């Protein structure tokens, strides 16, 4: 546990040592702020039945953040250590591979959630100016953040995997971006395929990220979805672990 915490703290601190961390935070804040502006204008103009959090997902800014920020967050994790050689100093200390993967992933997800903190401010503003407590109840807000967390987990685990298999940060970012876009496109495909199709549509429905996020935004937590995200995250982390271990059987 001491090793996990020590590693995790360093990984988390490393985001703030370089300018990259601040750039990511600034970019996410900018994009989520833009999303908020769009949301506010559309709330002002038309009559919407959707909840505020739901609106938030329907703007494409959320997906932009998810697709762009996660590769940048995770690209450094393994690729930089391998490129600079510190991977060797790290792996010759009495740490086990699982601790390393877990610490790096945990640091990434904590940092990712931190970049979303400014959106709490947006919610506060909405609450303050609408005077409607039911517009933002704990359920929908909690659901929304759970959704952010779970999609973040999945995309960050993809990024971890990409970083573990590459030697350069650039390659790592590109691989995880491609993986992320593919996953995202599957969700898009799931939306397009008519419900009449048989098992294909059923299988694809697991990947329909939009619908799932919509559910979360409305405060509906479907256990199947939660299991899907958690399972996929663990799957990619498991692959990452295998890649890290692979140097011992090569």
């Amino acid at each position: 546990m001491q090793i996990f915490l020590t590693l995790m703290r360093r990984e988390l601190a490393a985001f703030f040592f370089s300018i990259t961390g601040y750039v990511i935070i600034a970019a996410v804040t900018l994009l989520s702020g833009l999303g908020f502006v769009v949301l506010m204008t559309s709330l002002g103009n038309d009559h919407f039945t959707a909840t505020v959090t739901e609106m938030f997902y329907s703007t494409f800014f959320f997906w932009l953040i998810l697709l762009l920020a996660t590769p940048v967050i995770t690209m450094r994790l393994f690729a930089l250590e391998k490129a600079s050689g510190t991977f060797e100093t790290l792996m010759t200390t009495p740490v086990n591979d699982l601790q390393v993967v877990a610490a790096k992933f945990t640091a990434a997800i904590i940092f990712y959630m931190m970049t979303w903190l400014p959106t709490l401010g947006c919610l506060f503003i909405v609450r303050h100016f609408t005077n409607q407590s039911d517009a933002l109840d704990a359920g929908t807000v909690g659901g929304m953040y759970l959704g952010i967390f779970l999609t973040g987990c999945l995309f960050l685990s993809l990024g971890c995997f990409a970083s573990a298999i590459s030697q350069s940060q650039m390659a790592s970012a590109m691989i995880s971006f491609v993986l992320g876009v593919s996953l995202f496109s599957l969700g898009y495909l799931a939306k397009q395929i008519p419900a009449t199709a048989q098992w294909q549509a059923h299988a694809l429905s697991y990947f329909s990220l939009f619908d799932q996020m919509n559910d979360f935004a409305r405060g509906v937590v479907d256990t199947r979805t939660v299991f899907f995200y958690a399972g996929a995250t663990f799957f990619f982390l498991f692959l990452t672990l295998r890649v890290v271990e692979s140097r011992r059987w090569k």
Partner: protein
Amino acid sequence: MIEVSNLTKRYTGRTAVSDISFSVARGEIVGLLGPNGAGKSTTMRILSTFLPATSGTVRVAGFDVFYDSVEVRRRIGFMPENNPLYPEMRVREYLKFRARLKGLGWRRSRERVATVMEQCGLTDVSRRIIGQLSKGYKQRVGLADALVHEPDLIILDEPTIGLDPNQIRSVRQLIKSLAEKHTVLISTHILPEAEMMCSRMLIMYGGKILAADTPENLQKLMQGSSRIVAEIDAPAEELREAWSLMPGVEHFDVSAGADNFQRCALTPRDGYDLRPAIFMLARERGWMLRELTGSRHSLEDIYVQVTKPNEEEEN
């Protein structure tokens, strides 16, 4: 402390280390000497559990590097080639992080970090960012990291590479001072360095250990075939004739040097010291002699020397 038997490491299409065996006793400083690509770093990486061996067994402090790798890692301090560090961290912070990673308690790690910083002369720069330190200081940070958990065995891969002479001297001093408490394995391609620091040297070439002995014995091995260089102002023909007549000259080479001087490289037969004979010859014939040196053996000569019999056997 280290027992290596029949260790082989193959990368795809290339054998980096082939069937080597050696052992290192507790308290020894052993130098792994060899040119680039000789398999030194690969051997060290296997010893430090970073890479698995293709075949053969390696035991450190009685533990197998593959099956008990965590136990081995607890007992070694490894500084890889080029000394990779996290450039964005501060010296004390980095050492503290490494100490914690190596399982030291909070209090103990603070004590040890203070001790190794003192030992490695880092106290003045403890709050500086590693990336901004000079190479000599960085190297000391790497050493301090290898020492921080008081390992039984310290493995240093080219610890003095890229340092200036003063820094090399201080790093050497430091390594020598470790001998009392630790077993040290260092790799280098600089012969005098190994001579100065090590109680025993293993010479590696092409993935094999060609010679393993104390520096003194290796020097003796070389004595027989040292080379003499003489610069003499005389006609080249006469010089050639003189050398071919001189007893004890096995091989000679005369080439034109600057200002009419001829540069003669002479290889003596075993046991002959040609220098007095050359001086007498020059005096007798009235030739001007301006240089007479017995060239010191470079590491390359040792390789040539030790690889020779093997090649003949193979042919």
